[in-house]
């Protein structure tokens, strides 16, 4: 499950997602935002992540949708008044602004779903460790403890039920108290054992000198090329943004959207940036499919033969 965009060096993936988040927050233009939203959604589908997308969608739509509703209710700027609601003017601009903000939030959410899938904890920690080794070590240790503690907590819950300490029964007060007792047992046990963890760290020379970092990721030529492409495209977009491209003005009145040469360059740069992983993912998909087809045809002709015949006779 490590093909396509997931196989790139963590720094490439991080640059991509950092760029997407930055652009989602900087570029205030429906064309850009919708492009980004679609690109990430397609990337997720290509990576086979449609299910988490669907599962989170109702919550995200609710969060983002509420922004679209709240903005016109509370913001009354704008020159096109559509109607009055509870004596408050509802303007076209406010509705459009709310919708734009909704798209921004949706984009942020979806970028994070894709981020969670592509930049696994390992990769994040690898990058994090480069910037802040001690904090990263601390976080890694906590990450290692979480599944261990969950298992312990399960055992504790099972056993303490024998002596009547049970979150499942009794009134709210008792249940909350029992829950905390369970956590206290976990805490005592774990802190006791952690002394041994500290000993084993010390026994292996922790704290003697500056730690080095072992990496399982290698920055290959493809990664360097990708970094360069993403950086160049990203800078084009940022340059364009500083020039005033990639944003529309809604307040105080909507300005007609113009699409000149500068805007086009900026947008093309943005598309290249957003779509690069899609190209990687799609190419890999296509390669696998074609190689699979070749294998079936050449290596197992005898097996496929009768199968084809039977299907034909049907």
């Amino acid at each position, binding site marked *: 499950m490590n093909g396509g965009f997931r196989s790139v060096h963590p720094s490439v993936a991080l640059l991509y997602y950092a760029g997407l988040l930055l652009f989602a927050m900087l570029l205030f233009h429906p064309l850009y935002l919708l492009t980004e939203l679609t690109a990430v959604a397609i990337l997720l589908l290509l990576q086979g992540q449609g299910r988490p997308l669907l599962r989170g969608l109702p919550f995200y739509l609710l969060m983002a949708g509420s922004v679209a509703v709240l903005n016109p209710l509370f913001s009354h700027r704008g020159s096109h008044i559509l109607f009055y609601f509870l004596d408050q003017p509802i303007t076209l601009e406010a509705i459009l602004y709310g919708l734009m903000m909704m798209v921004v939030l949706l984009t942020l959410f979806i970028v994070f779903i894709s981020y969670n899938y592509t930049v696994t904890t390992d990769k994040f920690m690898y990058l994090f460790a480069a910037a802040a080794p001690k904090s990263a070590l601390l976080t890694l240790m906590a990450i290692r403890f979480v599944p261990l503690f969950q298992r312990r907590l399960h055992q504790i819950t099972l056993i303490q039920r024998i002596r009547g300490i049970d979150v499942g029964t009794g009134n709210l007060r008792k249940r909350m108290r029992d829950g905390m007792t369970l956590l206290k047992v976990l805490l005592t046990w774990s802190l006791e054992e952690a002394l041994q963890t500290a000993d084993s760290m010390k026994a292996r020379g922790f*704290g003697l000198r500056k730690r080095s970092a072992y990496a399982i990721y290698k920055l290959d030529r493809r990664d360097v090329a990708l970094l360069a492409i993403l950086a160049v495209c990203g800078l084009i977009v940022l340059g364009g943004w500083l020039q005033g491209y990639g944003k529309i003005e809604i307040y105080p009145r909507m300005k007609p959207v113009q699409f000149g040469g500068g805007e086009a360059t900026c947008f093309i740069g943005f598309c290249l940036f957003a779509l690069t992983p899609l190209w990687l993912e799609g190419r890999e998909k296509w390669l696998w499919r074609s190689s699979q087809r070749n294998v079936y045809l050449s290596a197992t002709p005898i097996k496929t033969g009768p199968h084809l015949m039977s299907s034909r006779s049907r």
Partner: protein
Amino acid sequence: MVKFRFPLLIALAVFVAGLALTAAFKDRHYMLLSLVLLAAALVPLFVRLERRPLESRELVLLAVLSAVAAVSRVPFAALPSVKPVSAIVILSAYVFGAEAGFIIGAVAALVSNIYFGQGPWTPWQMFSWGMIGLTAGWLRHTRWMRSRAGMLIFGFVWGFLFGWIMNVWYIISLPEAFSWQLAAAAYVSSFYFDLAHALSNVFFLAILAGGWTKVLERFRKKYGLLQQE
């Protein structure tokens, strides 16, 4: 590469901060700025951790407490909006001090989101829980925190503050609509959750402040660490 790491990071931070300021002043677009401000609040405290020599025992202790805080939601899965994370962070900070409290809160937020999914809320949660720990640690020697009632009030107030901070990133997405009514609407809509949070803080601190501080004090002696400050 290592040589250039810090200048590179600082340059990057300045660059992003510049962008954020431009976006905020030119377009009244505050999202990026808010993130930069959050980072500005969080980074110095993490830098302190990086700078000081760390014993393996301190590290392990912080990791265990963060992880316990992160899994503490599990036994209460059946009770909605009862989360003891804040209470645990307050108690840890009360025993081990402000810096440890901040680290435990922030790392607990980060780690639990690794299991529940990262999102735009991650830095905000790191900030809120970190600040709970930090303030609890600062106040731990005052007469106010020493008294039982003072600690309960502290937990109650932070229950609401936590919810309010978490509302900020939502309100910030509507700079044009910002008005006291909008803020009030957001806070009213989250009132029930905040109240539940505040009350459960009070309850947890009330029933277990004794038991837990005893356990933590015991281990502070046993580890023989983190006593300075």
